[in-house]
């Protein structure tokens, strides 16, 4: 395109024709994707906002405008606060665990020991399989009567806990299983980051007499920053949206002890068919995710200046 603009001899009508034909081609190329995005993502976002302002159930399909009443009701709803609290507990339990484990094992695998591809493959195994299917296997392992975990805890002299049936322990079980599932994903991201760090930095640091801690603190950590930041933000976002594993393991029970916000949205929207109310809860979750993600970016950027 630049050539037609710069060459003096080019006939203006022709170049104009070429431009429009390219523009037309471009819109045709984008037509399928843009249509789908418009109808199935952009439109529903506006609908969700509209629904949140209405009292609307599938049983009574005449939406009545109620302003912000859904929001007011939501903030008075103990079950919503319980779900929000569970979501935060889950996030705080799952995120540091999986990131720290992933970092430690990425560092070990980066040492180029023999068989590292095999270990990486095994650690990645849970990421490959549907979390819903894995939750089925975990329910079998945690079965109070015939489960392996109950038996081996008693063999090791540990107290027998009815993990998924106990309101005190169900969340812990869900968190541990989620760490098991996601740590390999973060490991692959961090390993890719580590492999981008040139060994010459470490060699230079050794010449200057740096010890292991200093090397980690002043070389590995700063250079791994982009990967760590991504892994962290991604882990937080997916933890705040936790659904599959919880739905299959506990359905949010026992006694709502593992009901997260998305499980709550699912129950309100697709079991009670209270669509205005469910949309409200989903939008509030979106707001929370947005604020937390921005907050993380802010705080972690801020520290960069040190």
């Amino acid at each position: 395109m630049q050539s037609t603009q710069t060459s003096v001899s080019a006939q203006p009508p022709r170049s104009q024709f070429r431009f429009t034909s390219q523009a037309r081609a471009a819109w045709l190329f984008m037509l399928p994707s843009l249509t789908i995005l418009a109808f199935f993502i952009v439109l529903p976002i506006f609908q969700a906002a509209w629904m949140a302002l209405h009292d609307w159930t599938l049983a009574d399909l005449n939406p009545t405008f109620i302003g912000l009443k859904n929001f007011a009701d939501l903030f008075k709803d103990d079950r919503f606060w319980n779900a929000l609290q569970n979501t935060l507990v889950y996030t705080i339990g799952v995120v540091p665990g999986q990131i720290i484990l992933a970092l430690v094992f990425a560092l070990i695998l980066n040492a180029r020991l023999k068989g590292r591809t095999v270990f990486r493959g095994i650690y990645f195994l849970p990421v490959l399989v549907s979390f819903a299917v894995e939750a089925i296997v975990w329910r079998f392992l945690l079965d109070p009567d015939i489960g392996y975990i109950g038996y081996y805890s008693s063999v090791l002299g540990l107290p027998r806990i009815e993990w998924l049936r106990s309101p005190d322990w169900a969340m812990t079980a869900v968190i541990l299983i989620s760490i098991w599932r996601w740590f390999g994903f973060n490991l692959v991201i961090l390993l890719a980051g580590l492999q981008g760090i040139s060994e010459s930095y470490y060699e230079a640091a050794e010449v200057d007499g740096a010890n292991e801690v200093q090397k980690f603190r002043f070389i590995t950590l700063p250079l791994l920053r982009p990967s760590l930041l991504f892994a962290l933000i991604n882990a937080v976002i997916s933890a705040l949206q936790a659904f599959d594993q919880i739905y299959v393991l506990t359905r949010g029970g026992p006694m709502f002890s593992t009901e997260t916000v998305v499980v709550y949205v699912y129950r309100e929207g697709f079991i009670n068919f209270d669509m205005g109310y469910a949309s409200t809860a989903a939008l509030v979750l979106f707001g929370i995710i947005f604020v937390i993600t921005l907050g993380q970016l802010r705080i972690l950027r801020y520290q960069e200046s040190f």
Partner: protein
Amino acid sequence: MSVQVTSGAVSPAGKQNPKRKRFMGSRISPPVQLLLYLLLVSVAVVVGMPFLIMLLTSFKFPTDIISYPPRFLPTQWTVTNYQLVWTQLPFAMLVRNSLVYSFSITLISLFFDSMCAYALARLNFRGRNVVFLAILATMMVPVQVTLVPLFFNLFELGWINTFQGLIVPRLTSAFGIFLLRQFFISLPRDFEDAARIDGASEFRIYWQIVLPLSGPAIATLFVFHFMYNWNDFLWPLIVTTTANMRTLPTGLALFMGEHNIEYGTLMAGATIAALPLIIAFLFAQRYFVAGIALTGIKE
């Protein structure tokens, strides 16, 4: 934000000497190596054990499964669970639905994503940046926000419990468009300019020049889409309400909740659901790893 799909973000050695075992630049002494191996192996056991037990249980008779203390290996191996799963569940339907659902979304979405990415990367038109930014913005919205309105729209269209309801809303992905656009931008323009001078149509340039040069990026996105949709749970759970339209993860999980079903049958079903991706991973580990490493550019 350059996308390096070709170099396989996690190629083992890089430019450095592959033989040296070093931990953050330091040599590792044999005792420390032994310790590291112990650590690696014990975590590998914890991570892999549930899959091993799933596999072994699928070959056990019920008496072995409910024996207490649990028996690790079957006393007698059997494949009856793999026969029963087809009769106790509408398993053939689940497999069919999963195949149709995952393959059609993956293939059509690759086509649409790459066409859109081609326009954004290679064609000049007004509003290109606006379109690109709008597509990026849709990536920020969590799916949960759109679920309720989407369900309602599909309900109005009569698309609940249909393949079009499951598939059509997923036929493009903002992430896929973004990924391919970044890749297309990095390709050399020489061939394409020559073809344009020769009067080749834009579609021909896209189909015969740009796509063949993009093998690794397309393969990575293929793996990415397939893994996501084969394993997806929430979307099929919402769009389907009858057992005959469910996919493998949703169908199996709901059967576990609703019926007092034999664990052996369930483990056979779970093994069949897990197998395609594990096998694909063994052959194309590189693309899986590159795909995950690439998700890093989402931010």
